[in-house]
C-alpha cells in the first residue's frame, strides 16, 4: 500500500513538471496558433542559467531569479525575432523555424558549456526525506516540486479566470480574429503569452536540475510528452493541460511500476519484463489515441 502511495506521488510529481511545460505550450499553440518546438530549448536555457548562477553564488534563490529571467528573456526575444514572422505562415514553416532554433540553441550551449552534463547541488533546505506515513519515506525536494506545481496551477487559474489579461487570453484562444477586431493590441498579448510560457518552462527546467542531469538536449526529452499532454487536454485549455498532465504523469508511472509485474503472472519473467517495458513506454500514446477517438479535440477543448 505504501508502495502504491509512493508511486502515486511519483506520478503526481512527474505530472506537475509536465504541467509547467504544457501550460505554456498549450497557450502558445491555442492563442497564437504557433507550433513551438523550441519550447524545450527554453526549458534547457532555464536549467543552464539557474545552474550557472547557483554554481557561482551558491544561492538557490538567485538561481531561481536567473532561471526565470533568462527563460523569459529568451522567450520574448525568440518571439520578437523569429516567431512574429510566422503567424501568417503554415505550420510546416513554423515547425522548420522552431526546429532550427532547437539546433542553434543546442549548439550554442554545447559551445559554451560542453557536452558533459552539469551538476546542480540540491538546495540544503530541501535535502533529505520525510516520513509521510509509517513506511512511506519521500524526498522533500520532490514534495516541494509538487507543491510549487500546484501553486502555479492555482495562480494560473486566478490569472486566467479573474483578471483582464486572463479574459483576453481566454478570448484569444476561442476566437483570435474577433479579439483583434475589437481593438485589442494582439501583438502585445502574443508577446506576453509567449513570455509567460517561457517563464514557466524556465521554472520547470530549474526544478528539474537537481533531480535530472542538466545537459544539452534535455528539452527534447520532455517536449514530446508535453505535446501528448497538450493534445489530450485540448489545445489552448489550461484546465485541460492541468488534468491531462496529472493523468499522463500517473498513468506513465503506474504502467512502468506495475505492468511488468502483472504480466509476470501470466508469462515467463524476462518476456514479461520486456513486453511490459514496451507497452508502458507506448502507454501514453495509446491513451492519446483513445482520447482522440472519443473526443477528437481533447478532453477540455477551448472552443467546445
Amino acid at each position, binding site marked *: 500500500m505504501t*508502495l502504491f502511495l509512493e*508511486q502515486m506521488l511519483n506520478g503526481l510529481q512527474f505530472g506537475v513538471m509536465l504541467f509547467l511545460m504544457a501550460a505554456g505550450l498549450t497557450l502558445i499553440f491555442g492563442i497564437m496558433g504557433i507550433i513551438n518546438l523550441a519550447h524545450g530549448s527554453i526549458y534547457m536555457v532555464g536549467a543552464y542559467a539557474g545552474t550557472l548562477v547557483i554554481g557561482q553564488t551558491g544561492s538557490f534563490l538567485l538561481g531561481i531569479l536567473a532561471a526565470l529571467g533568462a527563460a523569459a528573456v529568451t522567450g520574448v526575444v525568440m518571439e520578437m525575432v523569429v516567431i512574429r514572422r510566422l503567424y501568417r505562415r503554415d505550420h510546416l514553416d513554423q515547425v522548420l523555424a522552431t526546429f532550427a532554433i532547437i539546433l542553434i540553441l543546442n549548439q550554442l550551449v554545447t559551445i559554451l558549456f560542453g*557536452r*558533459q*552534463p552539469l551538476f546542480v547541488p540540491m538546495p540544503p533546505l530541501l535535502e533529505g526525506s520525510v516520513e509521510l506515513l509509517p513506511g512511506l519515506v519521500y524526498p522533500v525536494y520532490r514534495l516541494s516540486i509538487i507543491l510549487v506545481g500546484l501553486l502555479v496551477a492555482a495562480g494560473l487559474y486566478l490569472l486566467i479566470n479573474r483578471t483582464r489579461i486572463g479574459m483576453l487570453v481566454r478570448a484569444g484562444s476561442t476566437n483570435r480574429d474577433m479579439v483583434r477586431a475589437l481593438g485589442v493590441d494582439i501583438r502585445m498579448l502574443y508577446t506576453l503569452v509567449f513570455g509567460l510560457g517561457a517563464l514557466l518552462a524556465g521554472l520547470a527546467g530549474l526544478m528539474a536540475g537537481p533531480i*535530472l542531469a542538466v545537459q544539452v538536449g534535455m528539452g527534447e526529452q520532455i517536449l514530446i510528452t508535453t505535446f501528448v499532454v497538450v493534445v489530450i487536454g485540448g489545445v489552448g485549455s489550461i484546465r485541460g493541460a492541468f488534468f491531462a498532465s496529472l493523468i499522463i504523469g500517473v498513468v506513465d*508511472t503506474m504502467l512502468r511500476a506495475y505492468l*511488468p509485474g502483472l504480466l509476470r503472472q501470466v508469462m515467463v519473467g*524476462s518476456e514479461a519484463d520486456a513486453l511490459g*517495458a514496451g507497452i508502458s513506454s507506448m502507454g501514453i500514446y495509446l491513451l492519446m489515441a483513445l482520447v482522440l477517438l472519443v473526443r477528437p479535440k481533447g478532453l477540455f477543448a477551448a472552443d467546445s
Partner: protein
Amino acid sequence: MRMKTVLLTAAASAAMAVTGWAQEPVKIGMITTLSGPAGYLGQDIRDGFQLAIDAEGDKLGGVPVTLMVEDDGLKPGNGRQIADRFLNNEGVKLFTGIVFSNVAGATVPDIVDGEAIYVSPNAAPSNMAGKGCHENYFVVSWQNDSLHESAGQNATNLGYKSAFVLAPNYQAGKDAISGFKRFFKGEIVGEVYTRLDQTDFAAEMAQIRDAKPEVVFQFHPGGLGITFMRQYQQAGLLDAVPMVVAEPSMDGVILNAVGEAAIGVNVSSHWNSDFDNEANKAFVAAWQKAYDRPLTYYASQGYDAARVIASALKATGGDIEDLDAFRDALRKADFQSVRGTFAFGPNQHPVQDWYALKVVAGEDGKPVLKTGDRILENHSDAYAAECKL
C-alpha cells in the same frame, strides 16, 4: 585497332587513378553520437581517436589519414544514412565510431556487406558476436555481455546473495542483464527494463526499496547513469543497498557529476586511468595535455581503435583495396593496448582481462576509481563458439 587503343588508354588511366589514389590519405568514416545527453560518449571516442592520429602527425601507422566525423544523434536511421553516403559517395572503406548498439544494429550490416571494414570502439551487440559475426566486423572494446559478466562475477565474489537488476530496454540493455545473470550465482529478486530516453527513475527507486535486495546492478550509460545515480542517492538508497556496476554506469564523467556520494560503489572494467603500463601512461598524459575534462574509458577505446587500425595500415602500407590482407593484418592486433593484454578471439572480439575497481576518495578528496583485483583472465565472450568465420 581503334578499340584496342581505347582499351589501352582506359587501362592506363585506371592504373594512374589507382596509383594517384594510393598517395591520397586513407579516409576513415566515423559515425558516432555527438548530440543529446549521451553526446560526451561520442565526443570522447572521437577525441581519443584523434589523439592517436595527432601523435603521428595526421598519420596512422605512418600512412596519412583523413578522419571524417558525423553525428548520428543516437538515431539508428541517421547512422544508416551516413554510412550509405560515406560508402557510396565518398568511397570510404574503413569505418568506426558507433556508440550505441541500436545504431550499430542498423548501420554495421550495410557497411560490412558493402565490402568495407568496421572497427567498433564501443557497441558490440550479442546478435553480431555469434552466428551473425562477419569477417569485416572487428570489435576493440568488448562484447556487450562480457562487460556485465564481469559485474556479475564481481557481485558473486563480493558474496551478495540477491540482486535487483535494471537496464534500458534495447539490445545492449538486454545483453547487460543476460551477461550479469550468467555470472551472478545469487537470486534475482527484481528485473526492470527502463527506457533509453527516461529521465526520472522515481518509480524504479520505489520498486528497489520494496524488493529489499542485497545489491543493485544497473546499466545506464551516459547522462542516464548520472541521473540514475543521483536519484538513487536522493532516494536514500545509496546508504542502504550497495551497488555493483560495470564501467558504463560509472565512467569518469558520471563519477565527476555524482561526486562524493559515489564512494564505495563497486565497478568492473577492462581499463582504468591508473593502469600501470607504458601505452596507458603515454595516453593519459597526452589526454591531460590536450583536453581539460575528465578522462573516460570511451576515450581509451577510441584511442585503441585508432591504434589497432594503425597497426594494420602499417603492415599493409596503407593499401585497403586488398581486404584479405588488411583483415589479416588487423586480426594480428599488433599494438600495445592501453589496457595491457589484448588479442582478437575467433569472432574478432577482444580476449582480455577484467578488473574490480572501487570508488575511493582521492588525494585531493575528489572521488577516483581505484583498480583492485583481477576478476576474469583472458576472458572472451559467450558467443565466440557460435561464430563460423
